[in-house]
């Protein structure tokens, strides 16, 4: 087991190196450049030259890359062109917001997706199942930005029961940032009202972001449960008179969850990407908004290092998922 984890961690190094090169080139191959973004209409050839020189963009590509790589190896991910702040600092400052949102979305997706998958599997072919299929299809196909705006329109504007954007009501709650998880910081500050308000702010973006994973988790759960329900041991358990709820919990769900865990791992990575859209729509100050702004201003350093950090986390989450396999299913042993 330890060997397996070690091997997987070592494997991360070439992956991240390749990623860093590809992201670096990818950004530069696409049209647009920071000088143009900074200057706008004022982008006369002379102005562009001046800004490019100041940003070091006039040097050959390989020089730029090796300098960047050298920095990476020293743990220095560079500074934003625009704010001259360390990219790592900026990332760490915003990442808690994104994690908070991702966790909210995941909780929503799991809490609704798994039971729905279970119910539709047990009543497959019924109208409940049909309805579930339709719901999951809609969930997968609906664009996040549309869903986000619609949720806001209904719950924030028309009904006025949930906040439309932001992480907390800054007017009511002035909470010192300690961990930068708004819910946690509110508790640290002893503001129960702030905690509840932060939770309320999580609901709509959490639903918007969690809908696609919900649909996927529901489908996987359903398929997996259907498989397990046909297993001999389930029939045996039922035959020997175990109460249905115990059969479901101990025998069906536990065995059916393995593929679901895989999907959860992958979805967590995708949620980080999906957060870019959701955060923009909900004015959520996380990594997504940050990268969105960096793309808009062609802030290469932020895009390449920010995306690399996200990729790193994605790989890490998947490693954790693989490791968790061994615990969930003793038959799978890595050596």
């Amino acid at each position, binding site marked *: 087991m330890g060997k397996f984890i070690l091997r997987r961690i070592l494997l991360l190094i070439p992956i991240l190196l390749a990623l860093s090169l590809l992201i670096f080139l990818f950004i530069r191959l696409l049209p647009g450049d920071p000088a143009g973004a900074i200057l706008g209409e004022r982008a006369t050839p002379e102005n562009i030259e001046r800004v490019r020189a100041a940003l070091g963009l006039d040097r050959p590509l390989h020089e730029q890359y090796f300098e960047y790589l050298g920095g990476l190896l020293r743990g220095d991910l560079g500074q934003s062109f625009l704010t001259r702040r360390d990219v790592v600092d900026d990332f760490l400052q915003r990442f808690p917001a994104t994690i908070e949102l991702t966790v909210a979305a995941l909780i929503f997706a799991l809490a609704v997706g798994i039971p729905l998958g279970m119910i539709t599997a047990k009543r497959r072919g019924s109208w409940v199942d049909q309805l579930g299929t339709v719901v999951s299809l809609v969930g997968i196909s609906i664009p996040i930005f549309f869903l986000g705006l619609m949720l806001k329109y209904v719950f924030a*504007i028309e009904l006025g029961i949930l906040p439309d954007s932001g992480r907390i009501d800054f007017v009511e709650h002035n909470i010192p940032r300690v961990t930068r998880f708004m819910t946690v910081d509110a508790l640290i500050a002893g503001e129960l009202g702030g905690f509840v308000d932060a939770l309320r702010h999580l609901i709509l973006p959490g639903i918007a972001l969690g809908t696609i994973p919900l649909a996927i988790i529901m489908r996987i759960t359903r398929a997996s449960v259907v498989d397990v329900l046909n297993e001999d041991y389930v029939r045996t358990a039922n035959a020997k008179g175990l109460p249905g709820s115990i059969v479901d919990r101990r025998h069906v769900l536990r065995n059916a969850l393995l593929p679901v865990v895989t999907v959860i791992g992958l979805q967590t990575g995708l949620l980080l990407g999906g957060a870019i859209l959701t955060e*923009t729509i909900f*004015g959520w100050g996380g990594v997504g908004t940050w990268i969105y702004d960096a793309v808009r201003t062609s802030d290469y350093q932020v895009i390449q290092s920010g995306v690399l950090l996200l990729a790193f986390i994605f790989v890490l989450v998947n490693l954790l998922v693989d490791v968790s396999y061994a615990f969930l299913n003793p038959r799978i042993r890595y050596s």
Partner: protein
Amino acid sequence: MRNWRWISALAVLVFVLAACGTQTGATPSATGDTEESEPAATGEAPEETDGGTGEPVAGGTLVFAGARLAASLDPSQTSDGESFRILQQVYEPLVDLAPGSTNELVGVLAESWEGGPEDTEYVFNLRQGVTFHDGTPFNAEAVKINFDRWQNFAEEFQANAYYYGAVMNGFGEGNLIESVEATDEFTVTITLTQASPTFLFAITLPTFAIVSPAVLEATSADDPAASTFGTDVSAGGTGPFTLDSYTPEEEATLVRNEDYWGTPALLDRVIIRPIADPSARLQALQGDNPSVQGIDLVSPVDYETVEGEEGLVLVERLSFNSLYLGLNPTAAETEGNPLAELAVREAVEYAIDKEALIEPFYGGRGAVADIFLPPSSGWYEAVVAGVEPRGFDPDRARELLAEAGFDESNPAEVGFWFPTEVTRPYMPDPAGLHQAVTQMLEDVGFVVVPNSDIWDSPGYLEDGQNGLYDLHFLGWTGDYDDPSNWYGVHFGFDAEGAPAAQFGCDTEGLNEAIEAAESELDETARGDAWAEVANLIHGDVCFITLVHGDTALAFTENVQGYNANPTGSETFSTVWLTDGGE
């Protein structure tokens, strides 16, 4: 849209690669696709609005949403309207524009000054008894330290110090600033290497605000590797608000400066939030319990929504911009360009119904652009006097085309360019505008070859300015109110006497006229000189100014006293809530 293509493409790349390293195997997935209209620009456009009703009440908190927060908290490192919105509440320049005005100067940190357009020496008599938010007294030495700091910026800081570089002709010795001397405790003498008619107007920009020397030192503001001035909250300003907290991507909280030297702000607090998406911004303002009470850059398509919604007020900001159609007879990509004929260029202008563009594309808020300068400019009357506008007259356009030898069997074929993946305050929908104008040109007999390119350089901007486009859309948002910032920037000849490549406008006498206008220091004569420049350019139809697009803010009806300014020079200190925030 390009942004989303980028993000999607990056997401795919990352997840495909990342999946290669996992045994579970991932399916590549892209983030979705969304509409995005990006109205943010530098030195936003703008206007005078309701001064409020009833007696102003002090107190309360205003939550306001723009598209972004500040690019940097160091005023000298910013050049865009979103940054200025926050920083000009906290920091103050020596002189500023009077509220709502684009060309009337008022003293701020300078109580008075001697020196005008024709002088190389300016003496500023500073306001006494002003302290920075950190308690440091404001004096002549502080002004000198700031001017010296800008002039001697390390290269790393020069890239984002656009305005200083542009106004002062670069950095270091040999730029426009000869010397800055603290002649006594409250007198500063600034000597220029040559007279500059724009100097006083330029230093009204928030970029040139004076910062507490103690804060500059404490934050290592001039050390590119260690500076925290641009990123961390500091108490370096003198303005009516202090910056209380700043969380990037989340909020900037401004608190009333109780020790302000002038009329104190009415609001207790202003919280500025970034909401990038224009629809999301408007949504934040709607409903019974809106999370913000004011937003900027309302999308023109939403003007009607705001005006029709009870409890919301649309505040128009008159234009300080202009959309134009560039005409370049010397465009490198065309041969036998019909635009080489004056009659054809005139026909283009007669063919375009400028008025018809305002309703569909600017939500009905904007003005036909007879000249480059918008009517909100103090120079407008003087310059427009030199120009005889060509109205919309399709018959005249057809006649001119016929005179030039073009007919149905031999139509005038012109390439017509527009930028993609961008919106600007003067150009809310480039593709739509292109379609509309194409239709107008085809109606009089032109054959239009549509072309487009991506906005960011290298691309549309660079190719346009390098003279590769024959007919093309572009525009300008003024930095400060002087004709040289409009006609001079675009049509100035280079040192070898070649005309600006973008227009290839080699009109006889234009070079001399621009030089004369640039160096004319008497105000009336300067107006006349620029009128002559405008006359030559418009007479030769080097470009066709189309529309000055207004922008708009929206507030809940309890918000009063916001004075929109075409230049974006706007303060929250006069704003109050009818309910005092209760």
